């Protein structure tokens, strides 16, 4: 990222900030969608992120940490959006509003549904850790800086979230088997 562009954006240069929106917008949206599992909520979270960034950017002392800083704001915005979207209740069949690629030889639809159901049972914080690690590829230290947590706590939270997902998937599988549903 061009440091001169960031400095101009910090000085409230519209054109420079718009360039940042174009540069980071897709990635922030991708992360927000994967946390919220909702396209409208993800759009709102990203919009809120950039509005706060516009207001607070002059205070950013380490321009090289801009992406981490934006992720921090985004996770908070997602937390707010989760309260608006409401919690998913177990027992309902989840239908996402995104159509996966037609050629889906790697996974069955049932497996994707299981993952969706299990993921939606996680808290915002747990979802953020999962997405930042598995989708963006951030390390425990990097996620810790985004979320303001010690790296050890991030690793523990990641373990715990994955364990919860696996437990949820296994519980669903046992429930379906015992009810005789295919």
């Amino acid at each position: 990222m061009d440091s001169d562009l960031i400095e101009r954006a910090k000085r409230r240069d519209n054109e420079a900030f718009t360039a940042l929106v174009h540069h980071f917008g897709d990635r922030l949206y991708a992360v927000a969608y994967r946390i919220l599992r909702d396209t409208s909520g993800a759009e709102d979270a990203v919009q809120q992120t950039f509005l706060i960034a516009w207001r607070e950017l002059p205070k950013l002392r380490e321009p090289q940490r801009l992406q981490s800083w934006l992720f921090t704001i985004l996770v908070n915005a997602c937390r707010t959006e989760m309260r608006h979207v409401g919690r998913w209740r177990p027992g309902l069949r989840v239908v996402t509003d995104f159509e996966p690629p037609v050629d889906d030889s790697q996974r069955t639809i049932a497996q994707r549904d299981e993952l969706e159901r299990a993921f939606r049972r996680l808290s915002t914080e747990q979802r953020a850790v999962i997405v930042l690690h598995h989708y963006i590829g951030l390390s425990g230290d990097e996620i810790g800086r985004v979320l303001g947590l010690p790296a050890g706590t991030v690793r523990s939270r990641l373990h715990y979230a994955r364990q919860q997902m696996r437990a949820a998937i296994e519980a669903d599988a046992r429930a379906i088997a015992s009810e005789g549903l295919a």
Partner: protein
Amino acid sequence: MNTQLDFDRILDSWLADGPSELPDRAVSRIVQSIDDSKRGPIGLPWREMMNRLALAAASLAAVVLVVVIGFGLFSGGGMFGPGAGATPSPTPSATPATPAPTDGSLAQGPHVLSKTPTITVAIPAPGWFGELGGGILTKNENVDAPDGAGMIVFAEDLYVYRDPCEWSTTKPETPATTVDELVAALSAQSLRDASAPVDITVDGYTGTSITLHVPDDAVFGECDQGTFGSWGVAGESTPGRYAQDPGQIDELWIMDVNGVLVVIDTAYYEATPTEHVDEMRAIVQSATFGQ
């Protein structure tokens, strides 16, 4: 279930699916909001703006409705016909139902915590979040130091590591399959400062409670894969139960339920509020077991 590595690959692949481009309309809204902010208050996301407008409209409508009803009640036979000004007969007030939590937490009362065997518990207070069916409950979704609290159920034979830090090389050949075997293995686990076992009874099933401790100065980064592991389960190469943070206290309730070794691990810290620990114990003691 697949190994942890397989699960991670599946998770990576699943997360790769999904939209990854911010729609042009959203970019335009952001840019427009930035422009508008230079002229006035920072714009709101469009859904929140619509919600606030709807709320304002509803508030205005409510005010109008109150005015209309008030006029009808006090106008002595006016808009609602004769007798509208008479003293209305009191309507019996129903006992208000306890509203369901709006934060996603579990309502107070019975819930199925785990299956095989089925374990039903009573949630005694607000703030409990659950992975129902998966055997996990957390207080305020916080299981971390310094004041978290949470519980997890295992209903299977367990491989108790002799050393929770060097777990990858201290896993026993055979698992503990009885209450006595498990208690003995846990009492002997290094670094845990295990308490003396205490007899317990839950739903008529007798068993043993034992409390383990994670050293306050434990450095998880120096342990195998950065994990302080208590025990493993069949079919998995990494710990099935591991500590969240140094200083964690694990109060284990161990029972044989119709031939199945059941462990309810209630975890907390020295700084966890006493009432949260008491709530966890109450949850365990409320447990009833089915098939």
